[in-house]
């Protein structure tokens, strides 16, 4: 049973950042803007918020600091994503252009700034955020050790974001408008919806979530930030497509991938896997191969937003 708890706890560390960022990507793509800049936005969000922790950790610590850092990360991501929104909505440029530019800019900027400020590119921080056991809730049998021990508050933020995302996109007026802009912007415009505004909102939401995702990825896995989020932005993009742009399926995809990643990275801690004569690298490949296989079987009918990636031009109605 302990192994089972261990797997679930580990899965959270991998799945939650993927989930948050993929949900962010969903908001952008369902409004009609492809956001391949998720990776870069994650790096920027992680960079500013870890820097924030680095400077503030003498004055405060624990959950308050982490929550403030989450806000900083979200704010950075939101602002940074405006660049992508401007290029792909106002300038009607190919959306891979600004995405690629942002992905290239972010790590270079993080390294350059860190070196200029503190001469080394790694930004150190002390992890005062780990919760070994949530009071009261952690004592509940089964559920306690499963969800409320050895965790970070970011796990619950992630779950909260998932619930909020499902409600916003499927059960609010804004969500309906957002989806209509991604499916048929001309029709949306004809009934008085401001397509540009909605698409801006979609991209900025994706930026905020990707920024937070960057921080959420770094905090449990490391004690310094080295200008990289290890390709998680691209993986989140994959999770988004794997999840067919739908909240529930994205949640499933993120956790599927998280579990696979857990087996890959922690198989030596899982007795029945450790005994098998399979090399380390094969375990690392399994999550990606499994995703490929599942996609091949399930992807015949893609549910991508129809107007995804096509700049909306008012004149060409």
């Amino acid at each position, binding site marked *: 049973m302990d192994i089972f708890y261990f797997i679930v706890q580990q899965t959270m560390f991998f799945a939650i950042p993927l989930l948050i960022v993929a949900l962010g990507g969903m908001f952008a793509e369902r409004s009609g803007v492809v956001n*391949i800049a998720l990776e870069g936005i994650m790096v920027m969000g992680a960079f500013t918020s870890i820097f924030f922790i680095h400077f503030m950790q003498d004055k405060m610590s624990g959950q308050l600091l982490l929550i403030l850092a989450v806000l900083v990360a979200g704010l950075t991501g939101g602002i940074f994503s405006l660049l992508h929104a401007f290029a792909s909505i106002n300038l009607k440029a190919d959306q891979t252009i600004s995405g690629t530019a942002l992905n290239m800019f972010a790590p*270079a900027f993080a390294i350059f700034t860190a*070196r*200029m400020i503190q001469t080394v590119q790694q930004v150190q921080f002390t992890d005062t955020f780990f919760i070994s056991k949530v009071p009261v809730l952690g004592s509940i049998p089964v559920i306690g050790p499963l969800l409320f021990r050895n965790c970070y508050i970011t796990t619950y933020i992630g779950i909260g974001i998932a619930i909020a995302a499902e409600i916003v996109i499927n059960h609010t007026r804004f969500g309906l408008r957002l989806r209509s802009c991604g499916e048929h912007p001309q029709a949306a415009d004809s009934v008085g919806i401001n397509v540009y505004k909605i698409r801006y909102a979609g991209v900025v939401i994706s930026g905020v979530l990707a920024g937070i995702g960057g921080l959420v990825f770094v905090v449990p896995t490391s004690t310094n930030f080295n200008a990289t989020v290890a390709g998680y932005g*691209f993986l989140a993009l*994959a999770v988004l497509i794997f999840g067919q742009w739908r909240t529930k399926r994205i949640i499933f995809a993120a956790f599927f991938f998280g579990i696979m990643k857990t087996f890959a990275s922690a198989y030596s801690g899982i007795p029945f896997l450790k005994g098998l004569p399979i090399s380390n*690298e094969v375990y690392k490949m399994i999550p990606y191969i499994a*995703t490929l296989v599942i*996609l091949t079987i399930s992807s015949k009918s893609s549910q991508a937003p129809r107007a995804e990636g096509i700049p909306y031009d008012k004149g060409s109605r």
Partner: protein
Amino acid sequence: MKKKHNLLQSKGTSSFFSVIMAIVAGLLFGFVILLISNYKNAFPALITIIKGGFTNGTSGLGQVLYMATPIIMTGLSVGFAFKTGLFNIGASGQFTTGAFVAVYIGIKWTFLPSGIHWIVALLGAIIAGALWGMVPGILKALANVNEVITSIMMNYIGIYLVNMLIVKSIYDPLKNQTESVPKSAIIPRGGLEQLFDVKNMNIGIFIAIFAVILIYIVLSKTTFGYELKACGHSPSASQYAGINDKRNIILSMVIAGALAGLGGGLLYLSGSGKYMQVIDILAPEGFNGISVALLGMSNPIGILFAGLFIAHIKVGGNNIQLYNYSAEIIDIIIAVIIYCGAFSLLFKNLIHKLTRRNKLEKEEGR
């Protein structure tokens, strides 16, 4: 006068102008960052960046050509797929598998005579890259799986598989990298090392230029290239016209993969002391290829110059470390340049408007 108008209005010229404007904007932005971080050396540093490969005589130029070779190939790979309406974000994995097969053949197939050995190794790289590109192509054509996600997956599968195979076959455990490639598999220098005074130099750059020309001819002078571009513009229209779009998607990805794979071979058979490391990091050359393709506007000739330009200012970036700036400023500048490419539509419209206004005024004056 009329001729000049035509020149200004032609697509190529306005693209060229917008690229130049973007480069100027990128350099200005870089200059501002240099000023902010340390204003004293900002100006000489900017000059060093612009001078780039021209700083250290011929050795600087040789360095540019050496650095440009792999990114021209990955740029060509990404650009070629773009032309067919596919986003090949998997150039990184194709590059890595190509590099591995080239190095493997280089180390293990020493029974080959020395004039042929390196050619076989490069052919191996092409085939490996092609296979790696073929998987997303087939999945896209037959199972309708988005090529972006499959390419990303293939990148990771590629890096882990290659790491595993290196450790099993051609591993140097002391340095955590591959063994060194014997001389017969190193790409011939062709006397360039004397001409450029760099020992890294070899005829790899000519192979890359040859690939550029080949792709240019395929895209603009053959029916096959026309079909590929038609699929990129409008899949349904080309289907209606009787073009086999499934076959073209697969072929396009195969060719894109082959180009990236060849890039990997060219880099690691250059005998420059660069070895394939056993680390879990995707090859950056693949992602740089996206930048090169965008800057070159997916045009093979444009990609050649974009690759050379990026290599040029990267060499400049290495040189500004003398002034205590970090070389990452170059990536910032390149990012801004690519971002400004998004303005190209705006530039084009502006140029179009200006030239039209001129014309109208003239006609009125007459």
